[in-house]
């Protein structure tokens, strides 16, 4: 299946899939947090559209940036995670806004979608969207605990998407609040390592 985006740009099935999964993740998040939260999220992106890094901004707009970081990082994660589940190693190259990723590179047996998440670099200052931590969730889940020092040191494993989704409550509007809710809902589950991992993403 191909989709025409502009006159000279087409999209493959998994690119379409990633977009659909991304948007459905937003819908599920909306369903969980309600209209007040979601209204603020939409307004936040509208407010950032004129910043020069539309529609997310530069991550320096306080509560506005924080709600964007939370809502978009979760959607990017699920978009790529579910595309990997569906298309695996037949995925096409994918652009996660930093790089164009391919299957098996840089990590063998990882699809382009998982590579995009696993190689996310929250400390590359030239990368304008580094503060939207789309790679964080896979690092909480996977057992490929990379040693760092770049892109991150990952000492956490074996969380699942349900646990991660459960912590996206209506009163959670920042990544720091999300970290504390995740730890609170999963007591004695790698607490120190979870804090260290969030710190690697500059959430502390």
């Amino acid at each position: 299946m191909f989709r025409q985006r502009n006159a000279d740009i087409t999209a493959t099935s998994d690119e379409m899939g990633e977009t659909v999964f991304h948007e459905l993740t937003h819908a599920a998040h909306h369903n969980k947090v309600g209209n007040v939260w979601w209204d603020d999220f939409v307004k936040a992106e509208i407010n950032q559209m004129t910043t020069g890094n539309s529609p997310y901004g530069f991550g320096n707009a306080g509560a506005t940036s924080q709600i964007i970081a939370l809502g978009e990082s979760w959607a990017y994660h699920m978009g790529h995670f579910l595309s990997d589940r569906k298309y695996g190693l037949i995925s096409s190259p994918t652009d996660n806004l930093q790089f164009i990723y391919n299957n098996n590179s840089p990590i063998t047996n990882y699809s382009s979608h998982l590579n995009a998440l696993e190689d996310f670099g929250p400390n590359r200052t030239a990368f304008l969207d580094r503060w939207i931590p789309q790679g964080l969730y896979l690092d909480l889940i996977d057992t490929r605990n990379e040693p760092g020092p770049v892109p991150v040191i990952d000492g956490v494993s074996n969380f699942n998407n349900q646990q991660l989704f459960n912590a996206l409550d209506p009163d959670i509007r920042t990544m720091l609040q999300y970290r504390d809710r995740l730890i609170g809902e999963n007591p004695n589950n790698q607490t120190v390592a979870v804090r260290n991992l969030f710190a690697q993403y500059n959430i502390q």
Partner: protein
Amino acid sequence: MKNICFCLLISYLGIWASCNKNFDCRGTIYSFEAFAKAYPAKDSMHIGDTIWLELQTPTRLKDITSGEMVDYSGAANFGTVIGYVELTGGDLLNPGTAPAANDFNNIVVNGTSVQPLRPEQLREFLFKEQDNRYLFKVGIVPKKAGLFMVGLDNAAGVYQKSNSCRKSSFQLTFKDTDQHLYLLEESRPGYVLSEYDRGHLYAFNVY
């Protein structure tokens, strides 16, 4: 009516956010690669000795995706983040690494040092452009004994001064260098090195 407008707005935002990655300069146009060397490539050194990390690459580069040769001179922000960790001993799930950037001095020969986001773990540098090449050379001088590893990060969101929408990414990896990665394997039994590790990491002992 209000709900319909709200839904339309959400749909519009979603499509904008996810589909138009090249709108307003969001997407990456070029993917390049460049290679670094580390020398002298000894697996052991003394406190006060220097490891040199050096990278030279032409400004005319081959786009990995299209195979096209591209003049990418005048990059405004081409550089790398170098990370430092001490290998403290881990296992399959525990990386066994601790931030260690403050255990080293850095001597910048080619390039410019800039403020990193995580100074206890990282140092960040911008490359120098000269004679149609990008140049980078930094000396790493340990201040304490231990088993250490440095990592060379990729460059993302690079753009040209003449056109901020002409964005590129660079895979920056070691080449023609003995990276002593057996030290990482010994420090972390059971861990299987990935291609990423093999490309980006360099381990050494300091006595």
